[in-house]
């Protein structure tokens, strides 16, 4: 029952904290962040320990694809449908589980420091809830269970983005995230219906082994991918992620960088055998992934909010991972998920530390020269920076390099994808260096007030940074955590890995150099801009479209046509009444006349109609 325990520990933390929250509220007392945080964190640590034990067992067990399975109860049985509620722990899940519980535990600790005086037990409730849902997502044995986690993490994300609920802007961001995810979720929902219709099962293991009809496989794959674009912020459903930065920074680190947004990769990797059945789907995935990587990288160069830069960076990195899945190298994608989880969490937490130190300032043009004043933050951030650039021997080097290599050599590899990704890598180096330089080097551009309060973060925040920095440094040496069965094309161009390594180092170097050149001297304050204006486009088309459709229905159907029908039928009855009333003149002779006419009519009808005297 180790897996079940592992999943339910965060739920226990959630329940305890919920109780703590309401108990304090009932006594009109502020709940202590330390109590709440320790409850939540220890739940996560325990879960991490469980995950390690399970991992060890998995390693110990024999077989090609070793799996730990635990079935709890049967969820839905109707007709041919049998949905078991249970967990399946294999190498793919294991990689994700370790990241979720490990990085998750660190971020929980970090939150204690970050949320001091601002948080409450409510915050840790949500965080635990998120972890529970996320574990369900990656460990669930069937698609409905994945869907439970899928929507569950969306809910937790909604709650945490809008955590500071007095600002309506935060609420709007949360709502946007939830709704865009819901559109994506529809894809997963419909994919389940198709899977059930054609394969007769929703069990992940059985589904993965099922051969779909080619056209069905394409539709299925595209629907799954639609779901992934929502959750993993790919074109076209990516605009919620930058807005999601409205949440507390640890949330951004955990949910919007390390774990939740990578669940798309998990799903694609999990259903890789089915996805690979359709080349169309793979092409779409790699094209969208590459395009997203490029587009987000370009946008990141124009951001001045430290968290927004990281957000676009995340979108871009996710694009890399999708491109990897699309070319048929899902394992490279998963590898990048893990390394990315380390360094992006690190970067976010570092950013959080900076924001914490500056009492909430997020504009990079109002920072500068923080290297001396925040030494721990600086050094750990440097590790993250090096990792994302892909400098040897940091983890990013291995995973990014692998993706670039696969983009050329994998079965569905494509020089175009490779080119776009390589250019995106260049941009990545550029904007990360820009950020790095603007924050830590040069003259201080802090405002008077912020400058006076700058302080290094407490130990509870520094420690996770250090651990993550180590992980970012060393994470790449573990190698690919999973081996997915992917066919390597025989005919694909064979390029030596060494060449690619050299090339990618070169790219990183050039990008970093350009960034340093531009931002090391005097700083021109740049306004944030969105070169693609996708958000505005959606607002204008989808948002306004739905609103105007609603008001069209409201005005012309609901308050118009349907009311008219009622009014007209009422008026018709009324008209009939008034018409029949007109003969009621009050004159007895008038009445008699009409009665005589009626009588005569009847008599004529009788004489000529029945007896035919007229003929």
């Amino acid at each position, binding site marked *: 029952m180790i897996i079940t325990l592992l999943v339910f520990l965060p739920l226990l933390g959630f329940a305890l904290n919920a109780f703590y929250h309401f108990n304090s509220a009932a006594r009109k007392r502020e709940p202590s962040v330390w109590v709440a945080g320790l409850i939540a964190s220890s739940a996560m640590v325990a879960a991490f320990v469980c995950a390690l034990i399970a991992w060890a067992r998995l390693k110990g067990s024999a077989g090609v694809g070793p799996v730990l399975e635990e079935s709890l109860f049967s969820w839905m049985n109707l007709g041919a449908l049998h949905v078991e509620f249970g967990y399946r722990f294999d190498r793919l899940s294991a990689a994700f589980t370790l990241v979720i519980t490990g990085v998750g535990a660190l971020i929980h600790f970090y939150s204690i420091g970050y949320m001091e005086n601002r948080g409450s037990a409510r915050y840790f409730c949500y965080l635990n809830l998120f972890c529970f849902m996320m574990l369900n997502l990656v460990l669930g044995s069937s698609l409905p269970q994945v869907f439970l986690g899928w929507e569950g993490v969306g809910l937790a994300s909604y709650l945490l983005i809008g955590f500071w609920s007095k600002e309506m802007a935060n609420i709007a961001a949360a709502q946007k995230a939830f709704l865009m995810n819901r559109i994506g979720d529809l894809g997963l929902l419909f994919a389940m219906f198709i899977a*059930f219709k054609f394969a007769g099962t929703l069990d992940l293991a059985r589904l993965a082994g099922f051969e779909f009809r080619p056209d069905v496989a394409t539709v299925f794959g595209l629907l799954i991918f639609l779901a992934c674009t929502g959750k993993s912020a790919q074109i076209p459903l990516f605009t919620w992620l930058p807005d999601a930065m409205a949440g507390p920074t640890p949330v951004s680190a955990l949910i919007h960088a390390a774990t939740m947004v990578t669940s798309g990769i998990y799903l694609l990797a999990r259903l890789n055998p089915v996805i690979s059945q359709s080349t169309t789907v793979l092409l779409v995935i790699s094209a969208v992934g590459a395009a997203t990587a490029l587009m987000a990288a370009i946008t990141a160069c124009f951001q001045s909010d430290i968290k927004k830069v990281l957000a676009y960076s995340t979108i871009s990195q996710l694009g890399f991972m999708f491109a990897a899945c699309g070319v048929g190298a899902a394992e490279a994608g998963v590898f990048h998920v893990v390394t990315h989880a380390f360094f992006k969490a690190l970067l976010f937490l570092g950013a959080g530390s900076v924001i914490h130190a500056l009492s909430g300032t997020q504009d990079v043009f109002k920072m500068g020269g923080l290297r001396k004043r925040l030494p721990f933050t600086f050094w750990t951030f440097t590790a993250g920076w090096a990792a994302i650039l892909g400098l040897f021997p940091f983890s990013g080097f291995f995973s990014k390099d692998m993706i670039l290599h696969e983009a050329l050599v994998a079965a569905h590899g494509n020089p175009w994808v490779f080119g776009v990704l390589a250019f995106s890598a260049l941009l990545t180096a550029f904007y990360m260096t820009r950020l790095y330089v603007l924050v830590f080097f040069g003259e201080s551009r802090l405002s008077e007030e912020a400058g006076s309060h700058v302080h290094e973060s407490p130990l509870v925040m520094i420690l996770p940074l250090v651990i993550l920095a180590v992980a970012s440094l060393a994470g790449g040496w573990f190698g690919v955590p999973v081996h997915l069965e992917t066919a390597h094309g025989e005919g694909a161009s064979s390029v030596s890995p060494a060449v690619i390594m050299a090339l990618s180092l070169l790219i990183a170097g050039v990008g970093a150099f350009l960034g340093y050149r531009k931002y090391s001297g005097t700083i021109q304050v740049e306004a944030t801009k969105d070169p693609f204006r996708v958000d505005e486009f959606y607002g204008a088309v989808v948002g306004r479209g739905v609103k105007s459709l609603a008001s069209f229905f*409201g005005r012309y159907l609901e308050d118009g046509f349907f009311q008219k029908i009622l009014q007209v039928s009422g008026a018709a009855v009324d008209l009939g009444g008034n018409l029949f009333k007109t003969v009621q003149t009050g004159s007895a002779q008038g009445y008699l006349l009409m009665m005589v006419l009626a009588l005569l009519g009847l008599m004529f009808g009788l004489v000529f109609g029945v007896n035919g005297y007229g003929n």
Partner: protein
Amino acid sequence: MEISDSLSFLLTLPLFAMVLSLVVPRAVQRGYAIFASLLFLALTVYESSGILFATSAATAARFAVEHQLQWLPQIGAKLSLRLDSVSAWFVVMNALTAVIAFSSKGVWYRKSPKLFTALGFFLLFGLNTAFLSQDLIVFYLGYESVFIPMIFMVGIWGENQKASAVFRFFLMSFLGSILMLVSVFFLLSRQVKDGGAVSSHLGSLIPVAGGLPELHAKLAFFGFFLAFAIKVPLVPFHSWLKDVYVLAPFPATIWMSAILSKLGVYGMIRFVMPLFPQTMGTYQGVLMAIAACSVVYAALLAYRSNQPKALLAYSSISHLGFVMLGVFTMKNQGALSAIFLSVGHTMVSALLFFLLSKIDERSEGLDLGVPRGLSQQFPVLFTALFVVMLASVSLPGTLNFAGEFLVLLNSWPVSTLSTVVAGFGAVLGAAYMLKFYQQMGFGASSTDPGKQGAHAEDLSGFELVLVFLLIMAVVVFGFQTSIFLKGN
């Protein structure tokens, strides 16, 4: 025999409670109503426990009981009550709704409380008659008699300008139901023509309906369909709903959305499906399209509404569209899923209106404008509201998700297009429900806490327990679906 005899208690006890409520003093009227309805709920659950908790369909079928009483031999109508795995759910939901309705906004008890309680129990009686009866004439009697308390509840305790809403509600419903009655008469007259003994029992009318010529069957089907489509309501037939939901007092709104709408669902499953399978099959595409359009259309209008009650009213239409989508699959599984979702909708919509009534009590009144930023002030109330809202948008892990999922899963092979359209309704559903919640819950508080008067307390006591238990039920049954599906 012993069990079956006690079935008639499900009809007589509400009547008894009704009479008793005229004797109970005003001051304890509310307590009496809640207590009596709780007691009745317990009895109903006990009565149907054999069916509800059976592990397999076969066991449940063994517990199904039918109780026959010659009531009107002159017209071939029997008081034949049947408690089986279809009606049991509706009967239990009926009793539950009464509990929730009676415990909602207490202000309404200040004016003629005795009459209100009496009407409530009469409603309980009428609905049980409709849900239990296998005889179409008796079903009609129950179905139609439900209007009477409803008219008065809205008319006497409703907001201003309610009269036209009441007329609209009554006339449209009456139009539908009387055409259904004409259809029943038509079937009965066929029976007379065929020379059989006159009986309005469902079992003896099925062969009659089966033997109808195509055109006649279509017309008779239309009579039934119109009645239930107005009652549910499906979209082109819904124009009575909004005003009456908004202007009705909260208990009445709870009754209407939670259980009166289920009369239509129940009628469609219980009577229309077995009577007119061919005709329904002919029009299946249209019917599914209507259901899907209901979902989306009502969702859009809900999204447009700024008034919480109107929003919930439209959301009720939208969700019932899903239920009807399940019914119109015309498969056992689809119908089962629809019943499942109905139960979820009953609990959730009752809870939503219930909690809204509690918000109403704690603000200056919803008719004066939507209060804002209340979640800080009433954390328990708004947490409950949030969870119920999640169930309403059918987040996985709730009863409504399992129901909606199964409905759509079953409707997908029948009409993919309708399912896809309805699916988009689910996205819109999330949109308007979030809007609904954050309108009142988030942002800076608009009301001055000092001015709240007596109702500045958070949800507590009996209300809290009730809400908590219901939410637990929604979650637990979201996973323990076998209680509904019984291995079918």
